[in-house]
């Protein structure tokens, strides 16, 4: 019962937030001054007829509340406008690029979490030694690295200098694959550097969260019991401490997604990975406003959904939340 109520509360909050994100998007890009279409229509080079046409096509002749209703209706039908540069419906464009971004995001997030937790547990087990300050120092430096610059440096070192990895795109251009496996291999090679960049930049915080959490659990009474039972230290650490220390990691994962989404724009730009981030970059250069606006909406919704999922996961994992 309480579990259902928790679920209901979280779902309502998700719905309300989604609605606000959509409305926020509308106010930001349709009501506030600086609207590109309005600027377009104001240009002195247009004939009055053209101005009237632009105004009508984009629905600017309606008062804002009516525009809002039209906007909501279009959104429900999956219509996000027409791209200025591609002359294609934005929703279709996003569909082409979103998948590639999800591949990159998943690879980076999973690697960051797994590696971050492993390193965090190892350094937590060595607390009170030189490892502590080394961990904190590395993490502070890791945080200070701009994602895009880390990508540029990796491009130069591993791509241009050592020729170890491809630095452009998702597949070798004009490649003919003899098997699906070969194609997958090629994509994996292209995926390596963008993923590595995102992992390097974001892993530090994960290590810190995991480390702090494990240290906290190690101080609990049941750890003493486990030791008294004569269990192997390794077993105590990995079976008893780590499993209990994973909860804060779930929260940190939800935070991570928001960062990785931002980082994806930078990394996709640097490595020309054909995803949403590259699309945003190109749209920024071409001032393709409908695409920029829609991309922001999609990013926001993705982050919201991941947060929602992590809330639910937390509830499944932590019996204390389940009962509260």
């Amino acid at each position, binding site marked *: 019962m309480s579990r259902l109520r928790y679920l209901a509360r979280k779902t309502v909050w998700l719905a309300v937030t989604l609605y606000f994100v959509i409305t926020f998007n509308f106010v930001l890009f349709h009501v506030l001054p600086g609207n590109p279409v309005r600027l377009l229509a104001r240009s002195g080079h247009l004939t009055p007829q053209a101005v009237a046409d632009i105004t009508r096509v984009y629905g600017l002749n309606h008062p804002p509340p009516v525009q809002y209703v039209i906007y909501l209706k279009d959104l429900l039908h999956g219509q996000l406008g027409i791209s200025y540069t591609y002359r294609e419906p934005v929703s279709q464009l996003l569909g082409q690029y979103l998948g590639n971004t999800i591949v990159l995001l998943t690879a980076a997030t999973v690697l960051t979490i797994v590696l971050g937790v492993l390193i965090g547990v190892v350094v937590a087990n060595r607390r009170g030694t030189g490892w502590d300050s080394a961990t904190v120092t590395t993490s502070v430096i890791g945080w200070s690295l701009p994602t895009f610059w880390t990508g540029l440096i990796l491009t130069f070192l591993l791509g241009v200098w050592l020729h170890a990895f491809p630095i452009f795109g998702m597949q070798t251009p004009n490649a003919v694959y003899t098997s699906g496996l070969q194609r997958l291999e090629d994509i994996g090679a292209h995926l390596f550097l963008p993923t590595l960049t995102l992992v390097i930049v974001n892993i530090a915080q994960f290590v810190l969260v995991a480390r702090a959490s494990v240290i906290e659990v190690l101080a609990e009474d049941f750890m003493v019991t486990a030791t008294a039972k004569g269990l192997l230290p390794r077993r105590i650490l990995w079976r008893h401490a780590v499993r209990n220390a994973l909860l804060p990691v779930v929260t940190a994962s939800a935070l991570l997604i928001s960062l990785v989404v931002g980082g994806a724009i930078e990394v996709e730009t640097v490595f020309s990975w054909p995803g949403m981030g590259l699309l945003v970059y190109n749209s920024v*250069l071409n001032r393709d406003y409908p695409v920029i606006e829609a991309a922001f909406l999609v990013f926001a919704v993705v982050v919201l959904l991941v*947060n929602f999922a992590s809330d639910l996961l937390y509830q499944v994992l932590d019996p204390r939340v389940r009962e509260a």
Partner: protein
Amino acid sequence: MVRPGVTAGLGGAVPAEPLGEAPVPGARPETGVRRVWGALTADPMGRVGLVLFALVVLIAVAGPLLFPFNAAAVSNSAAGVLQPPSARHWLGTDELGRDLFREFLSAAHVSLVVGLAATAISMVLGSAIGTAAGYYGCWADTVLMRITDFFLVLPQLPLVIALAAFFGQSLVIIIVVIGLTGWPTTARIVRAQTLSLRERQFVTRVRSLGASDLRILRVHILPNVMPLIFANTVLVIGGAILAEATLAFLGLGDPVQVSWGTMLHFAFGSGAIGRGAWWFFVPPGVGIVVVVLAFTLTGHAIDQALNPRLRGSR
């Protein structure tokens, strides 16, 4: 801040419990400042941060005076373009044949200006919302914190990019956009602290003496929240500088005010990486890392000293 998670990772952005030691009733802000300074100079990381900060300020202020940069001094032959470092050009030349050492120095101040100004906006907004929510409680708290949570969950970089693309490329717009999106963590921290201060005896006492809300907030609450706000502010500056660099790299920087991010934008665009012109893309990045490190290290040191949850945990 582009990466809000870091403060949590580096040392609890939102303290679960308020400051452990109750400050003396009516404590003056000076004690806060002195405590912050003491914490900074006692911690080796804090000292490194201060030195880096002094270095960056020196570069930003004295650099352009000693080595003025002439943006119009382009090379008129292909031979002068993307030259490696030499006695004449200490850091080589850029894609137009201009001296990169001088360009590097002239761009230094932009990061600092944007970081400080944007953070000032975030800090004022966050503190105002945080104190209002924490002090007035009830529905004001609920509404303000819902708004804060809403902004907290929005991915900041896509939002900043969209806003900067819509409202134009000028330093002022960049500052406002970064400032207006960076306040939620500050608001949360300030709220938590205000909430506990409100219930302290010295506040109840002055209230019963007839002090107005505004006076209580100004004289008794704000000075006591100040050190925490300060620690958070220093961390936020680093994030704001990273955000500016990212915007500039993506081509959304102020075309007149060239920053290190803008230099990297041109380095990337002109294919300096493929040609191995490391003197073009390494120095600006190192510059950004050093500025951000300066603020992160000092902020981390202050946080370690002032945040009771972290004290003695290491």
